[in-house]
């Protein structure tokens, strides 16, 4: 059962129970929906920019513990980052949860995101963890008022 504890680490359970930045933003510069039609995970992300910097981020919606904790931790970590830095974290996160790189070598950059390394043992759950990041990637890539789906 150790794999389960690796997946559902305390920090993930905490963010699932008490998601940070979990609110609707009244006047966002960008908002984007992330939706996984297969499992029903469904979030809307709101972003505010100050020049190239992500000055505020929030989200609303529902889904499994992995997707919600991922959205919450992403929102915390990208606030104040530049679009390029957020894009770099997106790629790093994808590589960690698909087991392509060793999280131990990137602990400084990853910070709490390292908790998602356990997801790589659960291929069926990778898309839960990456849904918020794919949505963010769409939002900083210039799409607005569109939606991102991790299926198809």
């Amino acid at each position, binding site marked *: 059962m150790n794999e*389960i504890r690796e997946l559902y680490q305390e920090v993930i*359970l905490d963010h699932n129970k008490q998601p940070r930045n979990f609110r609707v933003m009244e006047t966002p510069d960008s908002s984007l929906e992330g939706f996984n039609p297969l499992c*029903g995970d469904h979030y809307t992300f709101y972003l505010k920019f100050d020049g190239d910097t992500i000055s505020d981020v929030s989200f609303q919606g529902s889904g499994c513990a992995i997707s919600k904790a991922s959205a919450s931790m992403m929102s915390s970590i990208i606030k104040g980052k530049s679009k390029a830095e957020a894009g770099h974290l997106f790629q790093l996160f994808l590589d960690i949860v698909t087991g392509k790189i060793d999280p131990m070598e990137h602990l400084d950059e990853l910070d709490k995101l390292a908790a998602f390394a356990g997801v790589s043992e659960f291929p069926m759950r990778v898309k839960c963890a990456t849904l918020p990041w794919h949505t963010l990637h769409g939002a900083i890539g210039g799409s607005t008022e569109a939606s991102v789906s991790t299926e198809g």
Partner: protein
Amino acid sequence: MRKPILELTQSELLTADPVFDAQRVRKDFPILSSFVKQQPLVYLDNAATTQKPVHVIDAIRMYYSSQNSNVHRGVHYLSQLATEQYEAARETVREFLNAESTREIIFTRGTTEGINLLARSFGRNHLKPGDEVLISTIEHHSNIVPWQMICDEKGAILKVIPINDAGELLMDEFEKLLSERTKLVSVTHISNALGTVNPIRDIIRKAHTKNIPVLIDAAQSIQHVPIDVRELDCEFLVFSGHKLYGPTGIGVLYGKAEWLEILPPYQGGGDMILSVAFEKTTYNDLPYKFEAGTPNIAGAIGLAAAIDYFTALDMDALIAHEANLLTYATRRISTIPGLTLIGTAKQKASILSFTLCAVHPHDIGTILDQYGVAIRAGHHCAQPTMQRLGIPATARASFSFYNTKQDVDVLVNAVEHVLEVFG
């Protein structure tokens, strides 16, 4: 006539319960003795697909090892053998459903293709603008989307029988929805998401008072309840082989001959023709008119083996065993704090859908998997059902005759562990 087993009360069931030896039949299913994550497999995803007995596996192996050939074509020995086996499979299905003739048994890829076939063929000649097709709230997407597609094309209207909070059809509303505009009623026998057993006899009878044909989706009932199409008197019925302990990629559309004769073909190609000229093609007779191309021969043979296996079981004992299992599981799982049963119809079969306080069904499914327990988590291809009940998804355990009370105990223990993980 004997009271249908599904309508017996619990005390009647217990007294009528001949012993079903689940441990003995489990030995017929090689996969059931396998291990998942170092735990003995507890397979409770039977509504998605059932496991295959060695009889089915052997029949398919034997076909490909010593009988493989194309059907209805060659004059050589193997082709004749394959044709005989394929047509014998059709006869096995006919007898199983108690259809009048093998002309009424169309082999398809499965339930989904059966419904698509009927929607296309029926829709082409029998639906015009303003006509209505009537389905229910608790249909699988496969009994919704094909009708939406053909209704859109023909300007017809899809109407939906509502349900109550327990997941039962509102029969008064059903009667009100039947009108001279209704051209077809298409309902599921048993809901795949909730386990509700629909009163199909009543539905068929009421539709017939207005001369409306009825399609029964038997995908979730064929493996749990004896089906007699002549007794039911439905015009059409569909099911999938893989939910009846047979292989994937094979299914059946039953249709009354008088209907199949007047419906146009679904797909064109080989086998469905008598003669082809560029000026005009003459279609083949039933059932071949609806079977274009080389069929799934091994699938049909595997399905026949599954039916032979299934019908050799003591059906009364099997039904009583499955009903007792559901009762036991319902009672045990209801004691778990924070657990809500979804679908509490008075008539239910073999499906236990539930939610667990704030834990998403996918998290439940992942944790149960660590215990070797296979369940389904999600919307079960029944999003309108979920929307009606105001939930995004459920966790679903679904039972077969090879499941035991011990399987239920492992399930309950694993669900309790989910609560420990999520505090």
